[in-house]
């Protein structure tokens, strides 16, 4: 009995369908919960499903896309997504690079310094939003108090409430929360640079700045590009910090495409139009993913060509 069941297992596990059997459960879950809803979104975007108006006759066609193309709010939201993305990626790369360069060598307290620079990454986005929300408070926030010490008489800045400062204030939170990703990647990249290159340069009398410019920068170009595109993908998707703190306000100033998609669905209940916006966000993020795949996921044989 036992022998025959073992034989069944063995013949199964040596058969041609075995790899598919092993992949199937994971793919089934992803298919059910990601691919199917995605197709559903596509279907929704071609119809009229508005929860508050269930009896409205539905049309089939591209009318939602037509509306989207001429919708000023949508393109304003795309623009805000681009600003948010650029701000967080540039900010994270700059802070990450400085931190990585400062902690690359051997020095006393190095592991403590590394711990400190990764720590913000462990703070959940919701918690980060609350912490900074408290620090940004106009009347009692610690940031305005610090500002008062540095520049007395500057008055209280309305960080998240003012139309001009809301976006940069949110970007600062995201940078604080996510620069450790850039830091980890860049530090790992720095450690792969051949130390002999620096030795040779020092013998030739190169200053630290020249070494940075002519060795570090060219050697790190590939790692930095991969890191930046990865951060762009993350930051294009960001939802939590913006949603918790401003919900897209004040007067839509922080309403990125991702926030607008969600608001459209759960405040206006126009599921079809919201689905149309989601398809737009999927297409835009696929562009980023395509760049990432070209850069980072090359066939094994091509490894090292980009260096």
């Amino acid at each position: 009995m036992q022998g025959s069941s073992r034989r069944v297992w063995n013949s199964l596990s040596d058969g041609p369908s075995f790899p598919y059997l092993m992949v199937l459960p994971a793919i089934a879950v992803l298919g059910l919960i990601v691919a199917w809803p995605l197709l559903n979104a596509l279907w929704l975007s071609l119809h009229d499903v508005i929860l508050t108006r269930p009896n409205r006759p539905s049309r089939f066609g591209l009318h939602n896309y037509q509306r989207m193309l001429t919708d000023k709010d949508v393109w304003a939201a795309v623009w805000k997504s681009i600003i948010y993305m650029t701000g967080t990626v540039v900010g994270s790369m700059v802070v990450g690079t400085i931190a990585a360069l400062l902690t690359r060598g051997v020095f006393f307290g190095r592991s403590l310094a590394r711990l400190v620079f990764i720590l913000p990454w462990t703070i959940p986005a919701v918690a980060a939003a609350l912490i900074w929300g408290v620090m940004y408070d106009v009347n009692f926030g610690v940031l305005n108090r610090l500002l008062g010490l540095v520049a007395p008489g500057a008055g209280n800045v309305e960080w998240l409430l003012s139309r001009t400062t809301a976006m940069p204030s949110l970007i600062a939170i995201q940078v604080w929360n996510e620069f450790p990703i850039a830091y980890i990647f860049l530090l790992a990249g720095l450690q792969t640079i051949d130390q002999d290159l620096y030795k040779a340069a020092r013998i030739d009398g190169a200053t630290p700045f020249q070494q940075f410019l002519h060795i570090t920068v060219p050697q790190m170009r590939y790692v930095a590009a991969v890191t930046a595109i990865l951060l762009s993908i993350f930051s294009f998707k960001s939802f939590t910090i913006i949603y918790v703190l401003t919900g897209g306000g004040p007067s839509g100033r922080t309403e990125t495409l991702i926030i607008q998609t969600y608001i459209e669905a759960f405040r206006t209940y126009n599921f079809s139009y919201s689905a149309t916006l989601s398809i737009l966000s999927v297409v835009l993020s696929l562009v980023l993913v395509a760049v990432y795949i070209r850069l980072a996921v090359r066939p094994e044989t091509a490894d090292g060509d980009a260096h």
Partner: protein
Amino acid sequence: MSRSQGLSVVRACILTILGIIVLFPIYWMFVLALSPLGFSRSVGGFLPIEWTFDNFVFLFVDRPMGRWMLNSVIVALATSFLSLVLSTSAGYALSRLKFPGNRVLLLAVLMTQMLPSTAIVVPMYAMLRDLGLLDSLPGITLAHMTLVIPLAIWMIRGFFDGIPLELEKAARIDGCSRLSAFWHISLPLAAPGLTAIFIYGFVTSWHEFLFARTFASPQELWTAAVGLASFKGEYFSLFEPQMAAAAVFALPVIVVFIVLQRQFVAGGLAGGVK
């Protein structure tokens, strides 16, 4: 020599300043969390004056913070465990067994990882409703698995790629089936990496806000992330309890990170898909 000493002094200064800026929000969270109500309104300094645990008592006695934390633990454990099982199976097959469609499948999996969650949240809501999983912890777990599985598959595939095939081949010659070669040879060798995945899965689910907020409306089914966000609106002026809640929510991850730094960072690095 003096020049390099000067450089290291400059470096120490910049490091200290940057470190203080980076740590300050976390420091301030703990200071407010442990200060009596009204501290942030009345005090002008940056140091704690009086310690108290009142804010934590408030969270767990007057608010269902304990319940929310328990929900988060259940969902995170289930998400992480189920994702690990499914991804180990898939990751092994994608690493060891070259079959038609292998590469396409890998790229498709990667794309699901990179898509914005908001793009599928509405149809997912409808689907969970049809399955009867709306307003339930299994529903949230299922949603969270989609965030963990893709990256887990990629990482686990990488672990198996790093284990020499010869070991399995030798076992096969000795009469092991493919399945038992996987179970007895490769799986134990991949175990340290799998621990990193488990942590990654747990933390991802613990942090997640959008799905947990959208798929569970009754308060007793909220995860800690959703409960925490609710403090923003409800007690917008009560900074101290807010910060106590944030501290309770963030602390487990901080502790895990400090204890298991190596696995944590390995997980983050693999996230880039080398």
